[in-house]
């Protein structure tokens, strides 16, 4: 049984993923350490997808996978934040 907010979140995330796919070249040039941020985004989107899936089948497994994806996404964004800020500080005159 899935919930409406989870589906809306997944839809919004899908829109975001499509946008990122279209603008991937621009974002790769604009965002420092873009790959880390992209990975964090990917795992977050996976988490949202597992959230929807756990409502349909294998609820325990997908729940664990969902939270694992959250955790990985959190770590990746932390790593990205640190790398991006360090890189920005190195570029300062």
């Amino acid at each position: 049984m899935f919930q409406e907010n989870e589906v809306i979140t997944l839809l919004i995330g899908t829109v975001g993923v499509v946008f990122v796919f279209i603008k991937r070249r621009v974002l790769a040039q604009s965002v420092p350490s873009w790959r880390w941020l992209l990975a964090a985004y990917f795992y977050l989107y996976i988490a949202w997808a597992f959230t929807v899936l756990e409502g349909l089948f294998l609820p325990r497994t997908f729940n664990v996978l969902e939270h694992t994806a959250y955790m990985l996404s959190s770590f990746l964004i932390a790593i990205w934040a640190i790398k991006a800020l360090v890189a920005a500080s190195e570029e300062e005159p």
Partner: protein
Amino acid sequence: MSPVGILDFLALTGSATALIAVLFFGRGRLGRNTLTAFIILLCLAVVHGVLGFMERVGTSVLPGSVKDFLEVLWAVAWSLVPVSFIQTRSERVLRESGERYRGLVENSHAGISVVQDGKFVFVSERLAEIRGHTVDEMIGRSPLEFLLPEDVAIMERNMLLRSAGQPVEERYTVRALHADGSTRYLDIIWSRVTWCGKPASLGNIVDVTDQKIIEQALKESEERYKLLVEKSHAGVSLTQGGKLIYASPRLAKICGRSVEEMVGRSPLEFLHSEDAHLMERNMTNRPAGLPADDRYTVRVKRKDGTECYLDIIGSLITWDGKPTSLGNIVDVTDQKIIEQALQESEERFRTVFYANPECISLTSLEDGCFVDINDSFLKMLGLNREDAIGHTSLELGLWKDRHSREVFRDILKSQGFAESFEADFACAGGIVRPVLISGRVIRLQGEPLILAIVRDIMRLKQAETTVRRSLEEKETLLREIHHRVKNNLQVISGLLNLQARYINDEASRGVYKDSQNRVISMALIHEKLYQARDLSRINFGDYIRHLAQNLFVSYGMKGGKVGFVLDAEPTSMVVDTAIPCGLIVNELISNAIKHAFPGGRAGEIRVSFRKLNGEKTYELIVCDDGVGFPDGVDLYRSGSLGLKLVRILVEQLGGTLKVNNDGGVFFRIRFKEYREAGTVLM
């Protein structure tokens, strides 16, 4: 705690770490929008993690609907993050682009301006610098205000046409007045742009003053070179690929053609066929770097059929990137004609020198070495030219007497010439030949030389000896003749003397005596002649003295009361004049002795003989201080034989006779020598 709770806790830790990092270090390093989005995102992530963790530990404080809303909000925040990144990047790109364009405009070598409605609305710093004004001074003013009055019309017309949308010259050069008063050349390229939504003209302005000055200098230089080439006495040609690509007007004039007739054709077409190969070889070899004549002379056929000689100096240059022959050409026809005439003249003089039968040599005045020597001289010396040239006459043993050579050289050095110098030369076959040398110091190419002409006078000498001997024989013979004539006259005188002894009549004996004295006067002349060195002349003063002595002895007056005074210069006289003159003297002295001093009267007979009028006229004076002629006697018409004889002889001499009978008798006779008088005696 369940495994999921642990995972949520770890997720919360990561999100919190990221939030702390962004909060503390993100300001100034991330864009404003990105920073805000991240803070919201990470706050939501932390809240999400906290709520999830609390839910796992059983202490949930928010209703499930709020938690669901936060999750949606979290997703929205995540989706906005890339948008914020792109927006931030666009702003940065736009800012950087503006900065780049500003940098381009401000750093461009060209000044940039925008003119709208006839006024500057934008002026770059560079343009203001070019004009010598500030940007503020130019903004709002018409571009025409900054131009020279002469060029205002050009820009004004273009602005009008551009504003009317008509075709217009987009690029032109005008002169602008700089703020410092100088004139600057500005190259302007106009283009149509839209400025603040309205049509405007974008001008790119470059200061080309230096370029213009250089162009002007180049143009003047080109004109000068063109003037030099076209007005030069020498013609100029450029030959490329075997054809003339340039011919100066002077060259065309020299060749008797027009420039158009020559350019594009091979120069070989204009040459004499015999000279074409010479130029062809040079034209082929020079571009190939092979040996070629830098200077040579060829004959050119003019259009009118005449020929001229051209002196060509060729050199290799690069013209339009191709090897080209540059020719400097001078018409040397006149020079060639002179050269030919000189060659012919030299040939003539060479022939005259070498073939001259006289012996001629050229010798250095300084070292005495033969410089040249002709065939006759070599033949006389028995030498080859190679053996003689470069050696001195002393080395060749030419002079028999070395001292003569020194004397000859001294004469030449002091006078510059010597004529008929006699010397003896040792010639071929060991024969010593007497020669006459005439020499003159001349200068050839600045070197002092002796031009000597040597004449072999051996035959002349032999002839001279023969003539001298013959002359001596004739002189001897002539003296003998005079001697014999004198002897014969003396015999006649002696016969008259003997005959007179048989005559008792005193007067008749006197006639004999007179005749005897006349014969003696002539005999005396012949005696003087054969005694003299010159058989044709006698010393007449000496003759008068001897004649007077004879007369005084003959008439027995020697040592008497009558004295004799002779005033005579030692003057020589030809025999043809001396004989009648001697007879005159004889008659006058005889008359004086016989008649001037009767009765033992004492007195003096004076005879004077001298030359007058620059030694052309003789004057003979015979006078005495005796009793003179009786009154009534016409001395010029006297019938006496003596005076008659005197008058006749004076007439024969062509002379004048003056007689004076005052205190004695005075006779003065003036006459010219026989040859000058033009009369023939006896």
